[in-house]
């Protein structure tokens, strides 16, 4: 799991959205649809070759998005931590008659277990890298606006937009409280003292945010809020969107074919 955020760090300034990158300029509606189909297809793959192909396809998108190596590594390490766990359990616990490759102490290592762990890792990374490259290159509010024009429930989109805006403020509030605790020598280990500290932190956050919510609501009403959060939704398809769609379709077809072909033989 990831470590705690540094007090001054917010998760939002990751500098991944560079407006010059090709994928940033592609219509976000097209990107959402393509990533969804890609994710579902990749999740349903059942053989190593097709999963490897999917990972290759996802990696292909990276040069067209802006990303820093540090950020990518940080993001990939979170998901691969889970897969590390799968690598540590699956090869030793495969109970259908597996082909034993060798043994580490009393534990038998099976080929099937290793294959499954490899398959999961390839699939998972293929999906996550595609999400990072394609969706990660758009700011969250642009994605929200796009999903509204894709007929996503309006209330959900509004909630998302407002939540994203308030997250930054809540994070600052949290950082301030944490800093105050740190200055007084608080360490959040598992002791009665620390537990009380954590509870005070959560409780204060909730109480402060509730008060803030009331103020925000009054402020919004006084500025004519009637349940609509305004965002730009005047997207128009351009040539680069068709280029992106064609390339995505080609890759999707290739991988679907790879997945199916395997089943036939």
């Amino acid at each position, binding site marked *: 799991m990831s470590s705690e955020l540094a007090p001054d760090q917010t998760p939002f300034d990751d500098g991944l959205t560079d407006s010059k990158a090709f994928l940033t300029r592609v219509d976000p509606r097209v990107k959402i649809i393509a990533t969804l189909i890609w994710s579902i297809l990749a999740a349903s793959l059942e053989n190593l070759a097709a999963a490897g192909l999917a990972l290759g396809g996802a990696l292909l998108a990276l040069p067209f998005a802006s990303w820093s190596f540090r950020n990518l590594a940080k993001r990939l390490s*979170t998901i691969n931590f889970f897969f590390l766990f799968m690598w540590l359990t699956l090869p030793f616990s495969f109970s259908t008659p597996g082909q034993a490759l060798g043994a580490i102490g009393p534990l038998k290592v099976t080929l099937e277990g290793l294959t499954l762990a490899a398959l999961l890792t390839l699939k998972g990374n293929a999906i996550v890298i595609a999400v990072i490259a394609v969706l990660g290159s758009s700011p969250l509010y642009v994605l929200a606006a796009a999903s509204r024009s894709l007929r996503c429930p309006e209330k959900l989109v509004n909630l998302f937009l407002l939540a994203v805006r308030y997250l930054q403020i809540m994070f600052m509030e949290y950082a301030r409280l944490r800093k105050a605790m740190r200055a007084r020598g608080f360490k959040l280990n598992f002791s009665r003292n620390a537990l009380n500290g954590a509870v005070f932190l959560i409780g204060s956050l909730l109480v402060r945010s509730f008060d803030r919510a009331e103020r925000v609501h009054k402020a919004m009403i006084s500025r004519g809020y009637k349940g609509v959060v305004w965002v730009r939704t005047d997207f128009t398809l351009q040539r680069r969107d068709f280029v992106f769609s064609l390339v995505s379709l080609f890759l999707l077809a290739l991988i679907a074919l790879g997945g199916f072909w395997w089943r036939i033989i």
Partner: protein
Amino acid sequence: MHISEGVLSLPVLLSGAALTTFGVALGLRRIGDENLPKTAVLTATFFTASFIHLNVGPSSVHLMLNGLIGLMMGWVAFPIVLIGLLIQGLLFQYGGLTTLGVNTFNVAGPGVLVGLLFHKAIYGPDTTKSSIFSFMAGFLAIALTALLVCVALLLTNPVNYKVAALTILASHVPVMFIEGAVALLVVRFLKKVKPELLVDPKWANK
């Protein structure tokens, strides 16, 4: 606690998505336009609170607070958790798009359940009863979430995911106690400091 991309089978992913869609639809219906900003601020708060890590031995657990969310928000927990996981998925890649349905249901479902079951006892004037039930709410919510994660894994691959599923379940036993204690203490704190946060049945538990 979140299941990664690429692990679950398509039928499991789709069932999770269907259950979550149902829960989110119910939750959204309970949010009136006038409560939208309030819900958004609380969503941001719960998301922020999930960054609090407690060091336990060599590792650290982060709080999920799904019992507390269920208690305070009722069915609205579904959209709140969905948005939290979506932002998390887009910004940090803990989970992702295909697992969003399953993960939202695993976290929000138990929260809503304990909220519906216990909120009367917890909101009541009896302090002992309130403490016991708020501990239970925090404890059970995590226990059920861990159980649902196991079920999702076992439905995908009943034989080979068994060890992984059992390891996940076992590793969450200490988390259950921590979340139980946190829920108990937070409820006690809120009752003292801002009781109206716990008695606003107009837009939560109904």
